[in-house]
Structure formats: C-alpha cells, structure tokens
C-alpha cells in the first residue's frame, strides 16, 4: 500500500438553517447535516472517486478539504498536517499550493478579462515563484502540457471552446505542481466528443506529474474509467467504499445497486432501464431515523428504521453500512 496523502477523519459539516428573522435572534437548533461523519484516505498517486446524487455532500466534503469551509468536527489530514488547525501563514500557503482544484464550469472559473497566459501564470505570480521570465516559461510549458498552442497563450477565454477552457483551468491548477488535485465534475459540462479528450488528458497528466486525484462526480461511467477506489455517498454519509472494479462487479449496498441499475447503457440489445427506486432523496433537514436510505430501500427490514447501521469491512477492502450484512 502506498503512503497516505490525504486522510479525512470523522468529518462533519453542519449548516445552521435560519428561516425567519426571529430565528436569527433566537437560533433554533435546526441544522443541515451536509457531511456527517465521513472518513476516507487517499493514497499517493491514486484516484479516489466520491460519487453520489446532488445534495449528498460530495462537494461540501471537497470544499472542506480545500480549506474553503471549516469543519464542524473531525479532521482533514494532508501529509499528516491538520488542515483546519491553526497555522502560520507560511504553512497554510504551502498547503494551498499543494491542493488545487478544477471545477465543472470552465467559463465560470476563468477571469474573462485575463489572457490565457495570465490566468495560468497568476498562481505563480501570487507565490512569487522566481523572476518574471521563469514564471512565463513555466506557464507556457503548462499550456503546452495540456494540449493548447503557444498562439492561444495570448487569447482570452471567450475565444476558446469549452474543452479548451477546461484545459486552461487544468493548466492553472497544475502550474504550482500540486500534490493533490480535486476534480469536481470536470467533464460534466463538456460535449461527448470532447469529454474523452479531457479524461485522457487527466490520466496522462497524472502520470507525468505524479498527481493524486480526488474525483467528485455523479457520473458512474466516468468514475469507472478514472478511479482506483470509490466511495458512494448518500445524504451526507458514505454508504459503501471499495476498489472501483469491486464496486461495479460486486455492489453490496442497495443504494449502490440502484445507482448502477439506473445508468443508461449504450447497448440497445441489452435494455434494462426499469423503475429502479421510487421516491426522491429525503430532505436533509428531516433525516430518516436509523439507516438514512430505509425510506427508499427495496430490502427494507424492521431494524433499518430503528438502528443506524455501522460502516464495517465485509471483506478485505470492501466497506459497507447496511443491516443486510450483519449477522
């Protein structure tokens, strides 16, 4: 097993909900448990996938790791350092250099008034990396590494296509040679024919720069292509966690099974879409008791609504929280 780069320990992130003015002055204790006791580790050089539907807490988790949100409780350890602890400016600057992110909408994450060159160079400028010439050189190399031309270096974002814009966002994220890159739905907004280019690019760059990825997505087919290990989230909790191949070939949690069964397969001779689960995700303000999935679970038993299942290792490296697997 490789060295652990990132460890998330019993992470919780609750958001208080204030509905009316009176509640602002007399805070009620209503909270949205966006992330509730989540733990996982990512080994160096690996790609870890965090999958789930909207509102499951996957993006909140990645924001806490990026240091954009403070955890309610629990810790995020990056190379052994507690991210949310108190640090000197130097320490936190080092941390922010080493964890970078690429988001879903490239147009929204690039400053429309900056040239591609300046966008990619900006992190180097902020960190005072060498003199201006070296910074420019590094940025140019980065732009080339992501498959853009030198001619595009002086262009503006609106002159590029969506796929090219996403390449710029990747170049900027990699400019400071980070250790960990958080990819939050990086190909969801891209067209089909361009998606494969970016996925292959991400794979190539990972090898070239020895990167570790945290890949956040709702798209299971992309997860299968890119990730080494996966955790499935539902309503703020991880319900299943294992190696990618194991998850797709031997899903244990009923929710994982439902998710896999709901993905359309591009093979008309093997049609399989049938109503997989009824109902919708319950409100995070009003979480079900016991197992959070029990209201929709096809394998519901009496115990499920009463006792919260523990997250246990069913077989080597395969964790699941479901009463079906307790004996």
């Amino acid at each position, binding site marked *: 097993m490789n060295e652990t780069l990132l460890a998330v320990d019993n992470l919780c992130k609750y958001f208080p909900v204030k509905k009316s003015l009176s509640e602002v002055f007399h805070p009620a204790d209503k909270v949205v448990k966006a992330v509730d006791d989540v733990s996982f580790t990512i080994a160096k050089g690996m790609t870890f996938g965090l999958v789930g*539907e*909207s509102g499951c807490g996957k993006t909140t988790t990645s924001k806490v790791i990026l240091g954009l949100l403070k955890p309610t409780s629990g810790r995020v350890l990056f190379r052994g350092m507690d991210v949310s602890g108190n640090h000197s400016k130097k320490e936190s600057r080092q941390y922010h250099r080493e964890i970078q992110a690429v988001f879903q909408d490239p147009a929204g994450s690039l400053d429309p008034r900056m040239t591609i060159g300046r966008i990619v160079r900006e992190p180097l400028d902020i960190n005072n990396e060498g003199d201006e010439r070296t910074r420019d050189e590094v940025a140019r190399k980065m732009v080339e590494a992501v498959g853009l031309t030198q001619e595009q270096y002086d262009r503006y974002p609106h002159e590029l*296509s*969506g*796929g*090219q814009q996403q390449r710029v966002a990747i170049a900027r994220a990699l400019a400071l040679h980070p250790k960990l890159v958080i990819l939050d739905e990086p190909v969801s907004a891209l*067209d*089909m*024919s*361009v*998606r*494969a*280019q970016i*996925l*292959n690019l991400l*794979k190539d760059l990972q090898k070239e720069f020895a990167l570790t990825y945290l890949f956040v997505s*709702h*798209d*299971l*087919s*992309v997860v*299968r*292509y890119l990730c080494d290990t996966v955790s499935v989230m539902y309503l703020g909790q991880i319900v299943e966690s294992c190696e990618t*191949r194991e998850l*797709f070939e031997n899903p244990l949690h009923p929710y994982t099974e*439902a*998710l*896999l*069964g*709901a*993905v*359309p*397969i*591009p*093979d*008309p*001779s093997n*049609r*399989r*879409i*049938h*109503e*997989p*689960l*009824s109902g*919708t*995700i319950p409100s995070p303000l009003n979480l079900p008791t016991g197992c959070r999935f029990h209201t929709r679970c096809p394998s519901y038993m009496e115990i499920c609504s009463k006792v919260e299942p523990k997250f246990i290792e069913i077989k080597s490296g395969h964790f699941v929280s479901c009463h079906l697997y307790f004996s």
Partner: protein
Amino acid sequence: MLSVADLTVNFYLESGIVSAVNHVSFDVRKRSSFGIVGESGSGKTVTALAIMGLLPMPPGKVDSGTVLFKGEELLSKAPNDMRKIRGNRITMIYQDPMTSLNPVLRVGFQIAESLMVHEGLPYRDAKSKAIELMGLTGISAADKRAEDYPHQFSGGMRQRIMIAMALATKPDLLIADEPTTALDVITQAQILALLKRLQAEYGLTVILITHDLGIVAELCDDIMVMYAGHAMERATARELYSEPQNPYTRGLLESITRADKDIKRLNSIPGSIPDLIKPPKGCRFHTRCPMVFDKCKEDEPPDFEVAANRFSKCWLATAGRKTR
C-alpha cells in the same frame, strides 16, 4: 407519422449566417420512438422547433424543406392553424421544467388549461382529468398535489407534471427535448421508465432529443445522429450500435465512458466542434475525421442509403444507393 425532407434552417445574425440545420431528412414511424442524438450546436433542438413552428423568426428562417405530419404540410401552415396542432396533436417537453411551468399558477390548472383550450372542456371536467393524468404519471395524492405550485415539487416531479400536460390532449406525437438532463441518475431512470411505459400503453409516437448515447440506446427504435447541422447517420438502434457506418458515429461510440465495462483507454475524437457561421466546406466532420480524403474537403456528401432505410452522410458509403 412524421416525414421531414431536406430541412434547412439558417439564422441570419449581424455576425453572419449560422447554418444550424442543413438538408436534414428523416421519417418517424407511427408508434415508434425516434432518437435524435448530437452534441451542442448539432441542430437537434432547432430541428424540433422547426417541426413545432416555434423557431424565432427572424433571425431564424426555414430555407428549404417540408415537414409532413399525417399527410399535412406544417411549414406552410398559417400561425392560427399551427396553433391548433401545437400543444394538441404535437406536444413537447423540455429540459428544464421549472422555466416551462408558470410559477404563479397551480399545477392542476396548468394541466387543465390545455384541455380547456384545445378540447373546450369546462374547468371542472378539465381539472378532474388533470388529476387523473397526474396520477398516471406517478404523482401520489394527485388531488391534493394539483393545488400546489411548481416550486413545491422536486425536479423529477415537475418533469412528471410536464409529461402530464403534454399527454392531456392525447397527442399523436410527443417531442421530448433532453427531458432528463437536469435530473439525478435515479430520477432520470424513473422518468425514462415512465416515458417507456406511457409509450407502450398509449401507442405514443415519441421523438427523443438527447446528447446521451446511453439514453437513446435504452429507449429508441430508430436513431439519427447529428453533427454541426448535418444528419450524419440514420439507422435502427441495434444497427447503429452494432455496426456504425459513419466515422463520426464510430468515433462517438468509442469515446464514451461506460458503467458496464472496463475501458483501458478511450479513443477520443481530436479537435472541437466547428463554428457554424463558418462551417467547414464539404463534409462538416472532415476537420476531425480520421478517414478524411480530398473529396470530403470539397463536396458535401449526400445521404447514401447503405442498406434498406439506413443512411450515412459520408463519401465512404458511396457503395450504397444515392438518395435525397
């Protein structure tokens, strides 16, 4: 049921002429489900809007073609006559149900409205029919929910309301434009299953527009693949996936990730989608095609019929009979 021939739609903008749909022909068989797949800018939505008579004109203009719906030519119909067909015989559902529903009207009334307009039913009858339709699309306690407003529903439920609305007049043709793109995976499967069920039970004819090759494979009988305003290939679903004829279709199928298979490396299509103000000369895919040769850069290929009812717009298909 529907026969589109040689449809060409251009948008005349200050910055130039956008060639959105170019010489597109296809037939939709009665009670079948016809899929139009394509990336953004491929012309799939513009094709649907042209059929519905909903193109913004100007700047849009239909420069050639006919749309025959049950033997009637739609493109030359007067706006008043078209209004009797649209929302009645042909209905449409869109990607984002929130913007298609009126936020200040109760959903029951919105569904009932089309029955009052098109079938002249009094409100009370239309309303009870609306409730019945809501139940049919899987909304529980429909009589109570009919009194709610759109914001009180989840995305999947709103799409069910849209479907109920689209079915109210028992249309001959339902056009669904990216009906599940804004939804989560499981909700998407629920809506797809619902469409499938309704189609089987009511003998609906459906045109499904999507960018997702998985969705058309699950739902459609016949498929047309569009790229940059051209119809690249038309075939039955089985044929298209097992033996794609057009290099673009092949490229697409090789470049998609799959949840049912391990893929070592995707075969990506290089380059990006062309600007439709200056579309490539000849075959519009030639700038990215791995099989490109000189002819492709000069002359636009016609729709070659490579087998019965199977068309490929590619010079490589010259072995086939030339049509339209």
